[in-house]
């Protein structure tokens, strides 16, 4: 039981219902999408990068609370960060939700999603936006 209470907290609900960074960026320099074809979750990221720095980030998409809140938290967290810092954040986030490591303090509000680590079926929801971020920054397709 604790597993569900850990994840489905009010903080997650708020993020899901009242996201802070939902929307597009008309002057985005990077866009990148992520989809879970099997479950239908979808996230699109928009980044405005200036030199080495992410000046703005937004997302659109649809899906479960985990995938959407994760995208919203991501967008908020990377704004103002340099690309290396953002990639470091990806690493820290995945360590928390994939490997179940104690959250790095740098994760801030992202710690809301720590509970995902105990729900293996939801890990791919939580990481959807983060994989898109990695692709965008590393130029993979």
């Amino acid at each position, binding site marked *: 039981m604790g597993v569900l209470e850990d994840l489905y907290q009010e903080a997650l609900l708020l993020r899901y219902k009242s996201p802070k960074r939902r929307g597009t960026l008309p002057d985005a320099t990077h866009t990148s999408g992520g989809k879970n074809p099997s*479950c*239908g979750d979808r996230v699109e990221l928009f980044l405005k990068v200036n030199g080495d720095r992410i000046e703005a980030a937004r997302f659109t998409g649809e899906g479960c*609370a985990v995938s959407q809140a994760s995208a919203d938290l991501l967008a908020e967290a990377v704004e103002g960060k340099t690309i290396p810092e953002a990639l470091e954040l990806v690493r820290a986030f995945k360590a928390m939700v994939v490997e179940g490591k104690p959250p790095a303090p740098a994760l801030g509000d992202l710690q809301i999603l720590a509970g995902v680590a105990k729900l293996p079926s*939801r890990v791919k929801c939580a990481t959807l936006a983060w994989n898109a971020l990695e692709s965008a920054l590393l130029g993979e397709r």
Partner: protein
Amino acid sequence: MDPQVLRKDFPIFEAHPELVFLDSAASSQKPRAVLEALTRFYATRYANVHRGGYALSEAATEAYEDARKTLARFLGARDPREVVFVRNATEGVNLLAHALGGRVDPGDTILVTEMEHHANLVPWQQLAAHTGAQLKAVPVTEEGRLDLEAFDRLLAEGPKIVAFSHMSNVLGTVNPVAELAKKARAAGAVVVVDGAQAAPHLPLNVAELGADFYVTSGHKMLGPTGASALWGRLELWQELPPFLTGGGMIEEVTLEESRFAEPPARFEAGTPPFAEAVALAEAARYLENAGREAVFAHDQALVRRALAKLKEVPGLKLLGPEGPDRGGVVSFYFPGLHAHDLATFLAERGIAVRSGHHCAQPLHRKLGAPATTRASFYLYNTEDDVDRLAEALIEARRFFDAWIA
């Protein structure tokens, strides 16, 4: 038919005694008899079929052709040659879309319905795109039935192919196949029925149903993955060109050209999934022994119980019709709460359900339902399974109170 007794035949419930498995519409569990048939076949009479002149190969070929006979009987086919073994329902539809392709010209219509699984939609969409034909869809009413007036209207346009499901994997609706098939054939169409959800659950007689082709899915009817029976009228099989080509389906090959064998061989290129077919025949026998009317009556009793209980859950939206045309599937959602989040809640209580669009995106779009969570019943499910689902949904209602719109 006592599910408490049958359950003991399914090793998965020994390995997971607390499991409430409500995802048989995606794939069913397997009885011990099927697993034993599979192992026994490999251990005692395995060799490649058809091309050997020694005892083991003869024995394997005989087992494979016996499996074809069993599936023919199970489906109600008049002749075992009408049964072609394919991998899954999806391959069945693709084979037909390809083999029937030569009959479709630019401007022709192909008719499907809004409740189709992607398996019985995308291959026709592709065929329409390649041939310049038009794909049209019979609408679904609000209760989740086919709009029969619209069906008649669309038939009047003279579609070359009419493809629809026997039972919807989302709504549980059992369509009036015999009536639809009769009208469609009278209108000159080739009729393809997607029986992936129906064949495991309903008594069936394809010869009487009146369709031209009937698609099934072996792994949803207690069989292993990898083998499914595709039925078609012999006269049609005899006219159609092959789909896959290679060994086993030819009569003569030169570097310049090939002549193809008679059906069913013409449609089974390469080494078929014959061990799986043998095990699938065991599954068919298991269902026959359980009693196919009894299986459907049981499904219906469970879905009635589920609908009655789930209607009491505040705010829960239920999809699909009520009545004798309702099979053992129920899809639902709480507005504002995503299906995956609900499924996770249920999974944490040992209740295995599926969430998402269930490979029926157009239907979900049409019904204005977001992703849904689906429970589906089969012969090993009990009333207790239904009750545990209902209780868990009541708890979910409380747990997610702030989430639900």
